[in-house]
Each structure stands twice: as C-alpha cells, then as structure tokens.
C-alpha cells in the first residue's frame, strides 16, 4: 500500500511524518469501509425497493436496539481516533530539550531565519540531519504559517507573540517550506528551502555565516558594518568619534594609530591588535578606559572578524600612520547554494524557488 500512501501524501522527511501517515491511512481505510457501508445500502435500497404502484410499505417507526448500536459503535470509534490523534499531538507539541533553536521572523513576504550564533538567512534554512530542531516564530506584520509538508508540521506565526514548532529531520537534501496562512498578494510566493545537511555540510554553512556572505564577500567593509550592528559592537563603540554612554573608544580614525596603553606601552592599531582586542579584550587596555569589554571568542567567525577590520579601516586612519592595507576576505569558500538571499535590515524581494 506504499504506492497509495505516496500518491496521497508527500515524501516523509521526519519521524513524525511516519506517525501522521499511519493514522491518515488508517482513517482512509476506515472511511472507505464506512462510505461503502452508507453508499451501498443507499443505492441498493433505491434499486431493490424501487417504486411499484400499490406496494404497501411496513410501518416501522423505530428500533431502540439499532439506535443504541449505531450511537455507541461510532462513539467508541471516535474515542479511539481521538486518543490516537492526541498521541501524535503530544509529540508535536513538546520539543525535546536538546533541540537546536532557530528563530523565525516572518513578514510579507519573506522568511527570515536566525541561528543562536546570530547567523541570519533569508528564505533558506540549513538544519542537521537527525538532530531535533525547534523553531521559535513571530511575525512582523500579519499572520503567516510555517508549513513543511515533508515534515508534516505546520504552525501559525502570530504578530505580537511567539509560537513554536519542532521536528527531527531524517531525510538528507532539500525540502519545501511554504506559508499556509493567507497573508496577501505575495502569499503563494512566500516560499523557503529547507536543507537537511550532514554535519560536514552544516559546519561549512555555519562557518561562512549564511548566504548573505555570498553577497558581501566582495565588499568586506559592508559585511563588517552588518557585524558591527548585529554583534553589539555599536553599543560601546561609536563610528563618528563621539563617546558612547558605555564608553568604549570610537572607531573613527583609529586604524594605524599608535595608542598608549594603561601600562604605558605604545601599541600600533593593526590587524593583530584589533583581532586580539576582540577575542581577548583584557590583554591590552587603552589608557583611560575601563577593562569592561566581554570577549567575543566563539561569537565571531573569521569572516566576520575580517569584515569588522575592513569596516574599521574604512572609517579612516590616523594621519600619522601609513595607509591601511586593503582587506580581502579569503577564508573558507562558501558552499555553492541555490537561491539568493537578502541583506539584513533591508527588504529583499521574496525569491521564487521554482
């Protein structure tokens, strides 16, 4: 009966899909039996007792036994089906604690995904095979609905609140994500691709920070500006020379400058120094500032550090130093990916993955 299942239901991409399909097929066969149980007598009686003039019909007003039978048997069937459905629902409703969490922010008509490390993608998600993944979702405008037919999961995305949905992908490759709650003109174009990756593929994806990198690798400073805003640098470091409330040195004109440290040493602001300041900020403190910066070890990828450096260089260098060397982002080549992506902070047209 596998041919019948696959004729009516999408491929199974998760363990949950198998459970849903089992109940679906059970209900299908139950319906076929019950339909024949109704249709056969209806048609048979219409033929067997077709009109003959003068035939007298029996005066059967009721039969209490029959009434009880056809009340109680359907009731028992319904109770059984309810608990069967409930069993699947309980699994769908509660995400396992070890799930990877991905934030979804939906808006007309784009899917935005954000990973725990800040990686953001648009209309494209990568998840690890056989690893539960939980989506925490909210909408920026109207109702949307995250629907992955292959995984048999679906949940509305509601502005002003968070909803969640989870599954464990078990089938490697590309799956389809589609919006299932009417959201206007672009509703049917609000599509995304879900890639179920092996560990290797997934790590490669995480290393390059999402498909946005594709767009920005030729413009390292722009990439760095995004990181400046996204990773929290701007909370303490201004880029216009002013001092922020939190009071870190401004990045304007800092590149190539000789800074005096609080132990009296003179240090050149160059790649080595900037990198060290991000990953081990307590190593050298500029004179006059508090040692309050947290480390960004593990929160910044190589590409992001390089982008930030390029961004700092672009803010002008100390007139006494030499001109900054141009930065080229060279680190790991991104895996080839279909589709395009949007720059964060700007609305990109929803791509059509057809």
């Amino acid at each position: 009966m596998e041919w019948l299942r696959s004729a009516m239901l999408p491929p199974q991409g998760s363990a949950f899909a198998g459970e849903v399909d089992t109940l679906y097929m059970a209900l299908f066969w139950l319906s076929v039996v019950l339909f024949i149980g109704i249709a056969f007598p209806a048609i048979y009686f219409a033929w067997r007792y077709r009109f003959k003039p003068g035939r007298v019909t029996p005066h059967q007003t009721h039969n209490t036994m029959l009434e009880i039978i056809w009340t109680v048997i359907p009731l028992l069937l319904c109770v059984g089906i309810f608990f069967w459905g409930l069993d699947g629902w309980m699994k769908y409703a509660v995400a396992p604690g070890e799930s990877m969490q991905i934030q979804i922010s939906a808006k007309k008509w784009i899917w935005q995904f954000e990973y725990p490390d800040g990686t953001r993608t648009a209309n494209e998600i990568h998840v690890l095979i056989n690893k539960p993944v939980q989506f925490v979702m909210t909408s920026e405008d109207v109702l949307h609905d995250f629907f992955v037919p292959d995984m048999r999961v679906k949940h509305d995305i509601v502005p002003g609140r968070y909803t969640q949905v989870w599954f464990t992908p078990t089938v490697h490759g590309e799956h389809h994500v589609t919006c299932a709650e009417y959201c206007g003109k672009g509703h049917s174009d609000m599509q995304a691709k879900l890639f179920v990756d092996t560990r290797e593929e997934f790590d490669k994806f995480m290393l390059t920070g999402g498909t946005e990198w594709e767009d920005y690798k030729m413009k390292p400073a722009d990439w760095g500006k995004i990181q400046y805003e996204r990773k929290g640098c701007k909370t303490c470091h201004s880029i216009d020379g002013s001092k922020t409330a939190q009071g870190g040195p401004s990045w304007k004109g800092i590149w190539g400058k000789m800074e005096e440290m609080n132990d009296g040493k003179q240090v050149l602001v160059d790649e080595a120094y900037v990198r060290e300041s991000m990953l081990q900020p307590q190593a050298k403190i500029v004179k006059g500032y508090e040692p309050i910066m947290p480390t960004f070890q593990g929160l910044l990828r190589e590409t992001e550090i390089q982008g930030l450096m390029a961004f700092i260089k672009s803010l002008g260098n100390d007139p006494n130093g030499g001109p900054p060397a141009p930065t080229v982002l060279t680190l790991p080549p991104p895996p080839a990916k279909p589709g395009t992506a949007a720059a964060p902070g700007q609305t990109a047209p929803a791509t059509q993955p057809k």
Partner: protein
Amino acid sequence: MEHTLTSRAPVADLPRPEKNYLNATTGIWSWMTTVDHKRIGVMYLVGVLSAFFIGGVFALLVRLSLLSPTHTLFGKQWITAEMYNRLFTLHGAVMVFLFIIPSVPASLANFVLPLMLGAKDVAFPRLNLASFYLWVIGAVMAVTSMITGAVDTGWTFYTPYSTTTEGSVTLMIMAVFVLGFSSIFTGINFVATTHKLRAPGMGWFDLPLFIWGIYATAIIQVLATPVLGITLALLAMERVFNIGIFDPKIGGDPVLFQHFFWFYSHPAVYIMILPGMAIISELIPTFSKKTMFGYRAVAYSSVSLALLSFIVWGHHMFVAGQSQLATVVFSALTFLVAIPSGVKMFNWLGTMYKGNISLETPMCYAISFLLLFAIGGLTGIFLGALSVDIHLTDTYFVVAHFHYVMMGGTVIAFFGGVHYWWPKITGRMYNENWGRFACALIFIGFNVTFLTQFVMGSLGMPRRYFNYLPIYHPYHVVSTIGSWIIGLGFATMAAYLLASLRKPMDAPDNPWGGTTLEWTTSSPPTEHNFEDQPVLQKAPYDYRPEPVAK
C-alpha cells in the same frame, strides 16, 4: 407509463381556486409591501438564487485562473494575484453570507414552515418583511463594496490583515453586520411561530422533521449571530478609529479575533447544514412512501447538533496559537458531532429499507446528499484527529471537506427542496427527465472538482494560493474541468425551471404524495394558506393505507 415509473399522483382536474397568493393582488407595490410569508419567501428565493449565481461565477473564475500555473489563457496572462485574492474572497463572502446562510431558512422555510404548521403566516409578518429588506440593504452594500475597491481578506476577515489592507473592507464588514440582523429576525420569527402557531392537535412530536431542523437552526441564528455582529463592529472600529483590539501593533490580539469569529462561524456551519438535513428528512420518507425511521432520534439529533455547535469552535484553531489544552478539549468535543450526524444518516437509510422508492428529481438530490455528505462527514474525522489535522489544516483538504459539507450537503439539499416544493410555490411541474439529468451532471462534476482537491491538499497544496508548484498542476486541471461540469448542470437546471414558468399551472396539490400539511392546500396556496383552519389528523409520514372510507 408515467405511473409505472414514478409515484406521482395523477394530475387532478380539481377546480383550482381562482385567486392564489401570486395573483390575489397585483403590481410591484403589492409585492414590495407584502407581509405574506409566501411572497417574502419567493422574493428571498429570487435573491439567494441571484447571489448563488454571482458566487458561482466567482467560483468558476477562481477555478479558471488556476487552470494554468502561469494563469494564461490563449497565450496571455489574464489575472493577477491581487485580482485572484479578491475573487476567492468574494466567492466565499457571497456564498456564505448572501446565499447559504439565508438559503433554506429565509426562502424555502419561510414559504413552507407556516404551511406545515397549519398557520396563516409567521408570528411576526412585518419583522419578516424587515428581514428581507435588511437582506437587500446588506446585498446592496456588499455589491457596492465589490465595485468600489473590493475586499481581499478572505471571507474570514482575519486580523491584522483585514485591519491593514486596502480596499473597501469596512463596507463589506458592515454589509455582513446588516445581513446578520436579517438572519436574527428570521430566527426569532421561526422560534415564535413554531411555539405559538401550530395547528390544533399538533404536538412537538407531530412536527414534520423539517420544522425540527429549522427550529434548531433558528435557535443558533438568534444566539450566535449577535456575536458576529459584535466582532465585526469591533473590527470596523479598529479599521476606522484605530482602536486596538485585534492588531498587536496597537495593543490588540489577533487570536482573539479568531475566537470571536469562530464562536459565531462554527455555529453558522450548522445554520447552513441543519436546514439541509431538515429537507432530506422530508424527501426520504416522502419518496420512500414509508414512515420516518427513528423520528425522535432524528429530531433530538437536530437539537443536539445545535447545542454541540457552540462548543467546538476551537477546532478551527488547532495550529493558530490557542492554548494546547484548549486544542485537546476542542478535538475531543469535535468528535461528538459525528454521533448525531451518524444517527441521522443511519435513520435515513433505515427509512429507505423496504420502502417504495421513486427516483424523482428531489429523491435524486436526496441520494446525492447521502453520498456526498458521507464523504464530507468522514473527511471531517481526518481534520478532527489532532496529529493529522496539523498536516491537513489550511490546505486544499480543508477546502474540499467543507465544500463536501456545504455544497454536497446544504446546496444539494437546498436544490432538492427547490424541486420538491417547486410545484407548491409556482403551481407548475418541471421536466422530470431534465431534472434528473441536471442532478447527475452536478453530482459528477462536483466529485470531479473536489475529490481531486482532497489529494492535492494531502500532498501539501495550501489554500488561497495563486501560484502553485508544478506537481499540483494535473490536479488543478481536473478540478477546473469538474467545475465546468457543475456549471453546465446548474445552467441546465436554470433553463428547465424557467421554462416551466412559461406553462400554465399544471401542478396537482400533492404531486409527491406528501403527508405534511402544506400538501393539503392548493398549489399554489391561496393568500391565507388554507380555506379553513387545518386540524392535524395523523402524524406526519404515516403511509399506512387509509381505513377504507371516503
């Protein structure tokens, strides 16, 4: 030869009363100011059939635009996503609010209910006329809204889309608000009429089952519709005055709107289906020439469906963000609905058993109803089961399911009723062969259109989609072809029904051998329904031979 095929009574050459309700008074003004329930019923019938025509044209256009994935006809793209969104919204809104909710109660029941009770009129004739005028005003507002920018919210008006989109949404909302009062007035009238105006000797369990169904419907109309009115008034206030009720941007909650909306609109599903079931409960004993099997079970099941309809609204929101406990409770309650629906089905079949069944057009509709409603009901079990519903909700599976219930159920029953009472209403018989032919076309076309949508939905095709993936294309083609067969069926029906009106009156008083009181008066009835106050002689559906006397 006629008599070997059908149960139809020979055409009586009875002297027909010269004056009937159609010609007792003349002139357009006499119709516009009438308080006669029969004339109001006829005007409603014309109104809802016009709405059905408009909604049907929208439906055919929706199907046509999905025929090709590029929406091209003869090499040109003829429709945009915005136009498509308006089309399916108007199809839904017109069919639900202008056609199907008033269809049976306001037109057929308006005509038949007082006759069945042996009454001269409904309890509040002027209220009845007011109800019709409210319907007309609502219809005019709805049409105005269509012309001046239209609506693209879907008939459900979900927030915050409906509070932020362009178009004349407010006017459409107010139209539905007005139509709600029209429905409430009808409901009040029927409750009062059933309680107070029954013929002497007619106890509650002597009522035709049609009355039981309409009575249960009327209770829902009176109790549930005000909630819709309140909800839509709040929605209009949010749109116009920016009061934050449903839009989270201004402090509202969109899920609240869904609760409010379905608190009415689920009972409204029973406003639609109970009258359909009520008609079937008349057709099956009449054309089986056999007493109703399990009369009380069917009567009680109507009332229990009416009561259950108020406590299952949350099954529209399993994945919408309501609490998970609520979801589980609503799923459990939803399964209860299957029981009275099943009881009705089995009792109808029990009535046909050992009957004397003549397959005249109304009975063809009744049997179509049994088959189609069975599919509608059984697929409801898929959607009630929580884990399966997660996958199926908001897909074409749901679209197909409610079309099987609403069209395969109510619309089929409604047209069964139109054919059943057509001789009584117009005094004319239609062509029986064309009648059966049109019924067969509609039945076949309907299944071609919507069975494919079950498969499409199970495969993951979401509803309200303008563009779709290529894998769904073959199903869309089949479904669209099916819609043309349905359209042909209804065109045929319109042709022979209108043709029958050109004939002189030829209908006997009781062409089908019915046992309820409306068949004891002339066809068409006189202005005041009966010559004398009828007195109930025996219970309805009693087909025991008369003790020989005359």
